[in-house]
């Protein structure tokens, strides 16, 4: 009984945590290279829009012989590429034009939902784009049958869950175990010093922004697939929440994972408390449950933000001439 509740919570938690994890890791690459990417929300929307649009078109064409998982993988690639394309203008404004990085990010956040709604309405007259969920995995072959671990991690899932962990591991290796990662981090901490040893700061920052775009686009689709059956030009503020997870996670992959799981757990409780009998019996109004993720994040931040470990040069345009 209680074990079933626990399994249910873990399964649900993944749907909320994984997109946050992926997008926050994307934000990490950008901020670690020295560019604040407040546009994560907008990039998520565009990525999800492009991916869902592709799924919608493929599913409605006659010769859709592609299996669900292949379709999803192609859609994920499309989402990531779209994310890169959308992130580039932000990179141009904040790297080459040395503009206020919040402004171009806000512009993208504003553009994305409007663009998605506009295109959807011009094509279908309504703004929702429906898709059939062919991607659900009831039980992973073999692994799903493992006692205890199987039900937790390999049943009622999507391939995107594992993608999230792959992204996490690759991110950690890239950031800490490769020369590229060291260079990227140095550009976010002290670009002048990086430049003095021959690192191309502009190039590094562009790469950081592009990785963040790819991951944010990916994360957008990863969020929409398990939690909805239509795309409504919104990702429910998850881009901003990913930003919170990033700060909460102190710009470090391991801590970001913990932060994403924490927030995902809170979100699961707030959404699924009616299915969890002992929570449902408590005399607490539903509004309180809905507030829990945000309230908890705020409280945790209150006690952990005093010693912030933000990249020092994050948000500051690099000017070769300055000292």
């Amino acid at each position, binding site marked *: 009984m209680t074990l079933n509740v626990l399994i249910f919570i873990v399964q649900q938690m993944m749907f909320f945590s994984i997109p946050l994890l992926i997008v926050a890791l994307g934000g990490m690459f950008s901020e670690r290279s020295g560019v604040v990417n*407040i546009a994560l929300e907008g990039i998520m929307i565009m990525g999800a829009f492009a991916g869902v649009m592709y799924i919608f078109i493929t599913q409605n064409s006659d010769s859709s012989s592609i299996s669900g998982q292949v379709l999803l993988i192609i859609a994920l690639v499309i989402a990531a590429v779209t994310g890169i394309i959308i992130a580039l*203008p932000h990179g141009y*404004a904040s790297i080459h*034009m*040395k*503009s*206020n990085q*919040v*402004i*171009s990010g*806000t*512009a*993208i956040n*504003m*553009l994305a*939902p*409007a*663009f998605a*709604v*506009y295109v959807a*309405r*011009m094509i279908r007259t309504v703004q929702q784009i429906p898709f059939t969920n062919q991607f659900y995995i009831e039980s992973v072959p073999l692994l799903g049958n493992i006692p205890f671990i199987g039900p937790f991690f390999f049943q009622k899932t999507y391939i995107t869950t594992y993608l999230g962990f792959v992204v996490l591991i690759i991110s950690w290796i890239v950031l800490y175990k490769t020369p590229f990662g060291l260079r990227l981090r140095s550009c976010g901490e002290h670009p002048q010093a990086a430049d003095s040893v021959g690192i191309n700061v502009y190039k590094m920052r562009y790469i950081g922004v592009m990785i963040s775009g790819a991951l944010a686009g990916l994360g957008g689709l990863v969020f929409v697939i398990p939690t909805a059956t239509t795309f409504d030009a919104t990702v429910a*503020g998850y881009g*901003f*929440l990913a*930003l*919170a997870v990033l*700060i*909460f996670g102190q710009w470090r992959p391991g801590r970001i994972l913990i932060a994403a799981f924490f927030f995902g757990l809170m979100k699961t409780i707030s959404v699924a408390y009616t299915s969890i009998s002992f929570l449902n019996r408590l005399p607490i*109004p539903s*509004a*309180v449950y*809905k*507030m829990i*993720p*945000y*309230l908890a*994040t*705020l409280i945790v*931040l*209150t*006690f952990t*933000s*005093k010693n*912030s470990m933000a990249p020092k040069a994050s948000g500051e345009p690099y000017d070769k001439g300055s000292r």
Partner: protein
Amino acid sequence: MKIKRILSSSGGMNALSSLFAIILGLLAGFIILLVSNPSQAVAGFVTILTGGFSDMFNIGQVLYYSMPIIMTGLSVGFAGKTGLFNIGASGQFTFGMYAAVLAAVKCSFLPNPLRCAAAIIAGMLAGAIWGLIPGMLKALRNVHEVIACIMMNYIGMYLVNHLIRVTGIFDQLRNTTVRVPSGANMPSLGLNNFFSTKTAQGSIRPSSLGSGILIAIAACILLYIVLEKTKLGYELKSCGFNREAARYAGINENRGIMLSMAIAGGLSGLGGALVVLAGAGRGISVVDVLAGEGFQGIPVALLGLYNPIGILFSGILIAHLTQGGFLLQRLAFAPEIIDIIVAVIIYFSALALLFKNILSYIFRDKNESPQIEDDDEELEDDEASEADETNSLGSVEKEGELVLVESSLSENKTKDNNNETGGEPGDS
């Protein structure tokens, strides 16, 4: 020569680059219209440009829509002057709306004008509290204000939805708050009938405009004075320019952060109060969606260059485009095109450096460089005030030109006022 000097001042430069951004944004909108439906594109574009002032009714609606976004724009802009990004205007706005409705409904013991005033003050206070919390967390616990504000947005939305039910001002049928008793509404001062059209049947169709817009304009002027002419404004701005330098000069930066966020919240809250007390029948919809006005304040503030007077005009400009987009639906275009246009405008206004480089190449002056002037402003007192005058004059004139076309009585009045207060020293 004088024109050249104004243009090459940083204010004039900023205003010019804003103008460029607006033109580019409109151009992008036109291209999108062209791509989506070539036959209707020109008609659609004309609707966007002129729909907002096609008749008195539409002008009234533009001013009505501009009221809340001017207030949230001021909120974002005021915090921006202190170096804080107030993305929490949405929650502050919602809380202000709630407190205003609650006070208007519950304070039935007060005579009507006082009741309205109590509702307005309640809205402001509620917004101020909602802004003060992130401010305190930032100042005392170093919590990033962007994250705190985002969390406060969601908490505010869910809390208000809950409180509406608990405090008995929920209208189950319409799924909104109950109507504010008409006596507690702000007087319309005949503005709604002045800005109206005659329908085909000969009856008058009044716009939703009321005295709220006057309060919004007054708030712009007041904030301009606070920021440019008072010690408080100087302290807050210096916190924004250089926090360390401000601390070194003996300014309590923590107090500055908290005060700035509280005032910013109060402005958003006031905006919320003005909306629900406008007598246009708008309540708070009990849905789990963040109030859009709060987020619209961000482009308004950015386009207005964080300057209160600039925000007044950029708010009207964006409301004008929004009304144009509303009318655009008659031509079977989606109104979201307006958000796309505004987003492009914002993006290109971020590329100010590009324009500035082009402009300063054209209006070259051997002993003036706009970037350096910005920094000097806060350091040298005498020069600063003089530079400020020229700046504001430049921006007022340019911004004024932009919206002069859609001039209405009240707008012209404010413009004149500002030229009087802000312009004279610069002219000499």
